């Protein structure tokens, strides 16, 4: 192979070794190594031109071997270069390249230009490079210089890339950290969302199922949310209410305004009560608690609260209040009854003489005697007093009346034809009484005398209120589950209404109209002062209710409501008046601890042709009975006797020893439980003091054989 071909190969291989890397050191290592190997050089160096303060100087970039510049021989070669150049000197120096020199006669050095980069130093042992070779290397050197510059640029780019990479790394780290925080945050959000969902589910379960009504309102009173319980409680459709004002829920404008202004002012409201009319028009009483929320951040202010239906509680409280009033009234009436009962007993004893003796005396004198009128006046006064006492007794004996199955229409009809009404009309002038009586009116369980008496007192009350028209109405009523004002168990009821066109009763007076002796009129003018009390007592004794509807100058209606009964009517509900009968010499034992009473009874009985014997106590009566060979035909036994045995005890003793002995009970007191017991044990009748001739005679004629 010729030399030229070899050189071309060598240059080619050197060229192949140039620019194989963009790292200056790596690139020069390979390139310079190729220069040395292929050109059989011992040493090589690449020097870079650097500028500082307007001067230029060459500094080593890469040497093979690395320690070349520590070798004093090679050092001396580089020392031949000027240390610094100005631009002109540099230009001149570059123009002088390539340089060639020899050291120690053996080492030949060649300094060549690497354009726009620096210098290439090659040292060859023994024989210098041919000048032609040196010139041939120019193109390779240019390529080497280009590569060096490319490496420097790459280095700059690398530095920038490194900085950029570092920045990217930092950002990646920040991103990773951010992602970690985001993940953490997401986890927290998930946890909290889960907790919120759980809470929401719990809240929703409560919201959907609670009986109270939960709501949220805007500050202008529009409903943002309301719980489904509103449908069950107030019969409104929940979806219809959303977005609508509170007034659509039955709130009045005033209530809405007051409610919102108060909550705006105080931030919360507690136990605010008001009444709402439900969709089905029923009134419901509510208590509400509410809070103003959303005051922080961007949240919209709203009112959140709950409505609790306290209708039952309200009604219970009202009922309780009424019951308390009724209890108070009952206690008052009871106390008055007890007082009246006690007074009546003594008064009866006192009145016996006044009432009984005139009748006896009138039988003894001539009817034309001038004493007849005074005696009749004494008797009538006594009877009026006795009537008062009787009303007192009626009040006093409440709860122990004898009840039969009666019909109210019949009692009314009888009353309308009774002498009592006739007498009343005589006394008070013309009174029109109309009736509207229900056909097939239900019966009721009660005392016909007391009912009749109550009716009479109601009519009397109307009359005394200067009414000239009275309307009596009866009707059957069936109550289903409660009444608006009265607590009435479900069932059949009978209503009795007495309506008059009198002067009317004020609300205040309505509260007191049933109190004894309470009247706006002059006491004793017509009634006893106890008439309405008797009505009240009678209604109570029949488990009934009484209501007043009246106002001054308007009609007055007293409505009495009694529990109805489906039992058959008792025929002898009113006893026929028993005419006075004379006795047939039958023997009567009068047992009374009051001597005066014994004397009156003896006088009346003897006048009635009875054989009379008296005993001052139960014990004495028993002695008489035991000693007597012929027991009396009948015994009049006073129930209230002080000291020894009372009437019941005496009656029980009589029954033990003389079970067939007939006994009539007498008492100036009310029909007590002891009287009831004695009647159950077999006593034939119970009559009230004072002893009146026709009362005693009719009683005896009922009990003794005709």
């Amino acid at each position: 192979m010729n030399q030229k071909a070899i050189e071309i190969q060598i240059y080619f291989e050197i060229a192949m070794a140039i620019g194989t890397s963009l790292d200056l050191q790596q690139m020069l290592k390979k390139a310079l190594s190729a220069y040395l190997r292929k050109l059989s050089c011992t040493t090589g160096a690449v020097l870079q031109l650097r500028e500082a303060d307007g001067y230029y100087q060459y500094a080593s970039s890469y040497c093979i071997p690395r320690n070349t510049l520590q070798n004093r021989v090679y050092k001396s070669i580089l020392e031949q270069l000027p240390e610094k150049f100005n631009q002109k000197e540099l230009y001149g120096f570059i123009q002088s390249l390539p340089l060639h020199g020899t050291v120690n006669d053996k080492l030949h050095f060649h300094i060549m230009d690497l354009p726009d980069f620096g210098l290439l130093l090659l040292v060859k042992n023994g024989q210098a490079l041919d000048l032609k070779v040196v010139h041939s290397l120019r193109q390779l050197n240019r390529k080497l210089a280009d590569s060096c510059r490319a490496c420097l640029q790459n280095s700059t780019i690398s530095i920038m890339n490194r900085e950029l990479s570092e920045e990217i790394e930092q950002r990646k780290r920040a991103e990773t950290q951010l992602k970690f925080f985001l993940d953490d945050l997401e986890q927290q959000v998930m946890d909290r969302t889960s907790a919120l969902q759980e809470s929401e589910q719990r809240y929703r379960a409560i919201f959907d199922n609670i009986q109270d009504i939960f709501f949220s309102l805007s500050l202008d009173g529009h409903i943002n949310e309301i719980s489904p319980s509103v449908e069950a409680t107030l019969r409104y459709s929940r979806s219809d209410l959303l977005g609508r004002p509170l007034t659509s829920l039955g709130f009045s404008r005033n209530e809405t305004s007051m409610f919102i202004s108060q909550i705006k002012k105080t931030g919360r409201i507690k136990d605010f009560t008001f009444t709402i009319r439900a969709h089905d028009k029923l009134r419901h009483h509510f208590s509400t608690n509410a809070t103003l929320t959303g005051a922080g951040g961007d949240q919209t202010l709203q009112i959140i609260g709950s409505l609790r239906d306290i209708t039952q509680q309200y009604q219970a409280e009202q009922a309780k209040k009424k019951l308390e009033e009724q209890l108070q009234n009952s206690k008052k009436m009871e106390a008055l009854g007890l007082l009246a009962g006690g007074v009546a007993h003594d008064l009866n004893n006192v009145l016996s003489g006044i009432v009984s003796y005139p009748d006896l005396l009138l039988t003894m004198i001539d009817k034309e005697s001038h004493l007849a009128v005074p005696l009749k006046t004494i008797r009538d006064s006594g009877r009026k007093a006795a009537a008062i006492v009787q009303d007192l007794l009626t009040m006093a004996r409440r709860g122990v009346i004898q009840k039969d199955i009666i019909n109210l229409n019949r009692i009314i009809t009888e009353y309308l034809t009774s002498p009592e009404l006739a007498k009343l009309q005589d006394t008070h002038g013309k009174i029109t009484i109309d009736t509207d009586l229900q056909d097939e009116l239900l019966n009721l369980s009660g005392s016909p005398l007391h009912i009749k008496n109550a009716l009479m007192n109601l009519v009397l009350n109307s009359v005394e209120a200067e009414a000239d028209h009275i309307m009596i109405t009866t009707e059957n009523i069936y109550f289903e589950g409660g009444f608006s004002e009265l607590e009435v168990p479900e069932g059949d009821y009978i209503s009795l209404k007495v309506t008059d066109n009198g002067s009317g009763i004020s609300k205040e007076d309505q509260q007191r109209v049933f109190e004894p002796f309470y009247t706006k009129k002059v006491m004793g003018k017509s009634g006893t002062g106890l008439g309405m009390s008797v009505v009240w007592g009678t209604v109570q004794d029949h488990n009934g209710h009484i209501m007043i509807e009246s106002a001054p100058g308007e009609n007055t209606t007293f409505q009495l409501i009694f529990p109805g009964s489906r039992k058959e009517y008792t025929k002898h509900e009113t006893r026929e008046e028993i005419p006075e009968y004379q006795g047939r010499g039958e023997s009567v034992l009068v047992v009374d601890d009051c001597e005066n009473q014994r004397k009156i009874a003896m006088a009346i009985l003897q006048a009635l042709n009875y054989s009379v014997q008296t005993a001052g106590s139960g014990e004495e009566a028993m002695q008489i009975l035991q000693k007597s060979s012929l027991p009396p035909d009948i015994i009049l036994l006073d129930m209230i006797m002080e000291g020894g045995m009372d009437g019941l005890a005496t009656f029980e003793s009589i029954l033990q020893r003389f079970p067939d002995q007939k006994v009539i009970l007498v008492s100036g007191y009310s029909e007590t439980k002891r009287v009831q017991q004695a009647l159950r044990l077999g006593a034939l009748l119970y009559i009230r003091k004072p002893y009146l001739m026709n009362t005693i005679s009719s009683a005896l004629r009922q009990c003794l054989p005709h």
Partner: protein
Amino acid sequence: MTIYFDPEGTVAGLERCLKQASEHEHVSGLLVLCCDANLFTAEKIDPILQGATLPLAGGIFPNIIYEQQLCKQGTLVVGLQDVVTVHTVSELSDPGVDYEQQLIQKMPDSSRVRTLILFVDGFSTRISPFIESLFNVFGLDFNYVGGGAGSLSLKQQPCILNNTGLTQDSAVLLFLETESGIGVCHGWQELSGPYQVTEASNNIIHTIEWQPAFDFYQSVLLEKTNSRINRDAFYETAKDYPFGIARLSGEQIVRDPYLVENDGSLVCVGEIPEGAFFSILRADADNLVQAAADSLKISLEALPSGTAEGLRLFVDCVSRTVVLNDQFQREIDAVHSSALPLIGVCSIGEIANSGTEYLDLYNRTAVMAVLARK
């Protein structure tokens, strides 16, 4: 400088030689050259090597040379004076190792060193980068001489000796204060070329002129020499036709293809870079023998003035023994002198530099190092 030779190549002989050399008063280090036929293994000789009291460096070679004799079996132990230190570089095939960095970190101050004797595992794949690193680090401060150890079986196996034992894929460096002269010649001449290596990696040529390396090589040999080379007996023919890489001056650098891969790639002792041009060489016995003589001549000329010749260390490529066969003795004779001791190895690749050229790995080359007498 004392030389102990065990012609039997036994373990006991090695031990004895080491002991004897070590006992010499002025010996500061040991050079150990063994024949592959000794069948030394790490198990057998590591305890002995580890028991050596002096720094030692050496290798196992296909043949060793002692005096006028090519030995296929035997052990040479040379007690050297002026040994500075011995170092080992491992992982000589690992592409990830930065040998320069290792050398900078490990090596001592080289200012006293005048000669470096080094042996590498001849079948390591990164010998060239290692040698290049050596030159980069130490430059022309001292002379280099050495070569590749290994077996003619062409299989890599433990072949480097140091004080830790017998190692593989490594290099051992023996730094001496002793002056030396180095001579390098091969005597091969161009047969045909140039051709370009179009694909290569390390010491493997994949394609030549874009043809599979073996196919191209085969066709050239057939054309130029009428020789038929085949894969199974590749080296039988290839030994006579190595490659030569051109330089601007001086002999071409020889590369020895010794193995053909299944894909037709050729494996060489030493690297041929991708893109390089090469020629196919041939030689006759006279030229080769003359080259050996020239190497001696150059080495003697290179010996610094004022120093006397003390020992001749001849590193001759093992392929030259194969090529020359019976005539190889002529090479030994050409470098031998009855007045001075001659030791040597038949190496797998040679390394040499006398300060006049770039340090490189050679193949099929005769390297003579003349160590100055103390």
